[in-house]
């Protein structure tokens, strides 16, 4: 249990550093900005209680906010992602159910399952994030385009990281 908590702590620090030092500096154009730290919320154990998940989401978002100078935006979007996660897990649960004590990872439930799971949560998170950032509905479709393009990149990087995690 303690071992596992430590592992998640380390994973959290790695993801935050990657996000802040590397991905926040990637500037393809005004449209694309991958946010990979949401992967931390994706990989938390399946049976984690809802309230704990929400609180972890809150502090994850807050950490990213501190480092990128955007009070509340990431916090809000990550809490939304943490809120919808249990419902999504229920909807897309595999036929045999989840293994007790397992993580919702790619090796446990297959690439296709993980891809669907990642796409849904990343798109929810990015939608909340980008609309909160502009805070208005003018240019609705332009923001939507930003959501989709950035999601595409985030999902690609998350899959990549998941493969790297497997090799380790």
């Amino acid at each position: 249990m303690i071992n596992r908590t430590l592992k998640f702590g380390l994973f959290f620090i790695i993801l935050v550093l990657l996000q802040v030092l590397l991905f926040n500096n990637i500037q393809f154009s005004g449209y694309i900005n991958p946010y990979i730290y949401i992967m931390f919320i994706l990989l938390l154990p399946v049976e984690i209680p809802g309230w704990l998940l929400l609180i972890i989401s809150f502090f994850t978002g807050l950490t990213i906010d501190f480092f990128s100078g955007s009070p509340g935006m990431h916090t809000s979007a990550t809490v939304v992602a943490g809120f919808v996660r249990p419902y999504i897990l229920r909807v897309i649960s595999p036929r045999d159910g989840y293994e007790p004590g397992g993580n919702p990872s790619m090796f446990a439930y297959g690439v296709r399952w993980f891809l669907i799971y990642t796409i849904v949560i990343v798109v929810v998170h990015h939608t909340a994030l980008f609309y909160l950032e502009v805070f208005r509905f003018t240019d609705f479709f332009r923001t939507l385009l930003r959501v989709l393009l950035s999601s595409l990149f985030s999902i690609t990087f998350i899959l990549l990281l998941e493969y790297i995690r497997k090799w380790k």
Partner: protein
Amino acid sequence: MRNLLNFLAKYNHLIIFLILEGIAIYLISNGNSYQNARIIKGIRGLTTGIEKKVSNTRTYFHLREISQSLARENAILRNTLERSVNRNDLSFSPLVDTIHQQQYSYSTAEVVSNSVNRQKNFFTLNKGREQGLSVDMAVTDGKNAAGVIVGCSENYSVVMSLLNLDFKLSARIKSNGYFGSLSWDGRDYSHAVLNEIPQHVTFGIGDTIETTGYSAVFPEGILVGTVSDFEKIGGDFYRIEVLLLTDFKKLHFVNAIGNLKKKEQIELEKLFL
């Protein structure tokens, strides 16, 4: 009471969600501008060390361009000097101007962190209150407008970039003097939009846009960009696309310009307004 407890137990997920989301929205609505930029600056002290290293590396790669632009600026300054000295020589009765005072003070700074890919971009300078910078000073990249300082700590300043949806600048078309309001539409880091130019005004693509000095932040005549496209909107005004002269992606050495007479002006106005 029991019902209430049951209710809380049943919907605890939703309730915690709403509470946390409430806190987040409160943070957003309360901040995103200067107060928070200032609070966060303190915490960001952690990251600025690393950002400084990154920025040093970046400077090294741009040394050639930087020295060229400095040389160019030197030439311009020398020309100006020459002109003013010669003018004094020509006038037979030298003017002793006792009323004249310096209105703007200039100082240089380096950008240590920057972004162009958000909707509300800020960048950070390596100088702060200790080095004489203060809130509301204008920031240029040497010749062209780049932003306004919104928060200062001891040794760092946060600048609201021109690439920020909240940024408004009073700007005019140099050739005819008509002024409007310049803002960024969040689309492209190399273009901004000038609004409120009436439709009877004639101008062409390539015309220069400069600051007016009405806001008492930017001095008059700082270059902003050139007209790259325009269209009529509604019945009265043009919407002018401005190609920005500042390249925000490689912004590095900047000038901070303070208006020394601003305080006096504001204090005077306070008596009447």
